[in-house]
């Protein structure tokens, strides 16, 4: 009888090991994109964590959307100045900090310009150059005054936190999933990836989309928990007019899509909000300036740059790829 009890115990233990590796995945449509959330652990914990994540995403959508007239950002854009929640104030502060850090290569004040290009409403077209010049003269992150939770923007300007909102949302989602008792999760908010804790059985494997869409992936990163991998590329969203391709990453200096020699920039950092802003900023900067920027701020992030010639990776990243990978060196 004891033998049977021992066998049953062994069996239960083995079954228990299986349960540890169980995962639950949920697809959520929010922030104008599709999101995939995967939580590992016992079904009771994963279910409630995913519920909490979904609720958090719809809360953030209401708070930060530029297209929802009821959002706090819309209120600021309508009246030029408004009191916002502490959270929105802090996020605007992060956006302005990222703008200063990148000398304006990331700029959250291009709302009217994105609107003129029709990127929000799916009515994409090339705007009149005169209109664009007028709108551009009203933009500039230096013209946003933030005092705690009180925001004032310059005349003719509109805030658009789209360049950091998903990175911030990724941080929030993983935080609420952790609070709900899940200690291992991976999420992708429209391609903005975040990890929580250790994946059962190895590092998280995060693929980088091939900008040419020829290969399956350009490479696969091995990431620990608590990291964000956020990519910007011209291939994500674009339209064609009169035989020319126009993509959605605007150069704050010109108001036109950035003429970058980069096909894509992937930023890896423990700060999701910053990673999101930097992916846009470094794309706008182009290869040489991006490498120089990383040289000066290698404590903040790692990156993968893809150009027409190849793939360039900073030394601390672990990546597998069928391509020739050049490891970047920080300037002395």
């Amino acid at each position, binding site marked *: 009888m004891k*033998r049977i009890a021992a066998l049953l115990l062994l069996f239960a233990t083995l079954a228990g090991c299986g349960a540890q590796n169980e995962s639950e995945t949920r697809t959520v449509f929010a922030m104008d994109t599709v999101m*995939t959330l995967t939580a590992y652990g016992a079904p009771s914990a994963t279910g409630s964590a995913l519920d909490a994540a979904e609720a958090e995403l719809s809360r953030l959508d209401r708070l930060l959307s530029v297209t929802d007239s009821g959002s706090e950002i819309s209120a600021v854009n309508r009246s030029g100045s408004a009191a916002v929640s502490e959270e929105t104030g802090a996020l605007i502060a992060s956006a302005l900090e990222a703008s200063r850090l990148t000398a304006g290569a990331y700029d959250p004040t291009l709302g009217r310009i994105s609107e003129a290009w029709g990127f929000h409403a*799916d009515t994409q077209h090339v705007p009149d150059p005169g209109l664009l010049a007028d709108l551009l003269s009203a933009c500039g992150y230096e013209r946003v005054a933030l005092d705690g939770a009180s925001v004032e923007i310059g005349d003719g300007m509109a805030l658009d936190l789209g360049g950091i909102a998903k990175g911030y949302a990724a941080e929030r989602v993983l935080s609420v999933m952790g609070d709900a008792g899940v200690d291992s999760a991976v999420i992708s908010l429209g391609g903005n990836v975040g990890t929580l804790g250790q994946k059962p059985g190895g590092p998280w494997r995060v693929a980088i989309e091939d900008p040419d869409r020829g290969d*399956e*992936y350009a490479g696969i990163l091995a990431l620990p928990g608590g990291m964000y991998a956020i990519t910007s590329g011209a291939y994500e969203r674009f339209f064609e007019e009169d035989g020319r391709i126009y993509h959605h990453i605007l150069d704050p200096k010109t108001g036109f899509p950035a003429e970058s020699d980069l096909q894509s920039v992937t930023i890896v950092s423990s700060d999701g909000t910053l990673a999101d802003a930097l992916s846009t900023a470094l794309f706008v900067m182009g290869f040489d300036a991006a490498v120089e920027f990383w040289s000066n701020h290698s404590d903040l992030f790692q990156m993968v740059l893809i150009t027409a010639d190849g793939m360039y990776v900073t030394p601390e990243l672990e990546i597998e790829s069928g391509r020739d990978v050049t490891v970047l060196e920080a300037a002395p």
Partner: protein
Amino acid sequence: MRPRRWEAVILGVVILALLIWALWPGDPGAAVSVSVNGQVTEVYPLDQPTIVSIDGYGGFLLTLVVSDGSAHVEYASCPDLICQHHRPISSAGEQIVCLPARIVLTVTGKEAGVDAVTR
């Protein structure tokens, strides 16, 4: 002490069960899973040629074609046609998304090489 016969039978059954559990083919074969508005509606094996129309959110629909071990969207009634222009997918984790129709096609299979794709 020799095991009693019924103990031996139980032992045998348990060992057999463990063997089946351990040796059962882990990879059910690559397939494309179709979800509409977050709910998985169908799963089609990639090794069986299929043409199927999928009703999506907002009255949009698309035609999924599975052939030569990959899946692609042959036709979509949505305005942006991003899904229709997407190249065929065949590796575990690859996705084609039609946002207006809220349809997500995902290649599944135990050999899933990746946990997420950054794009």
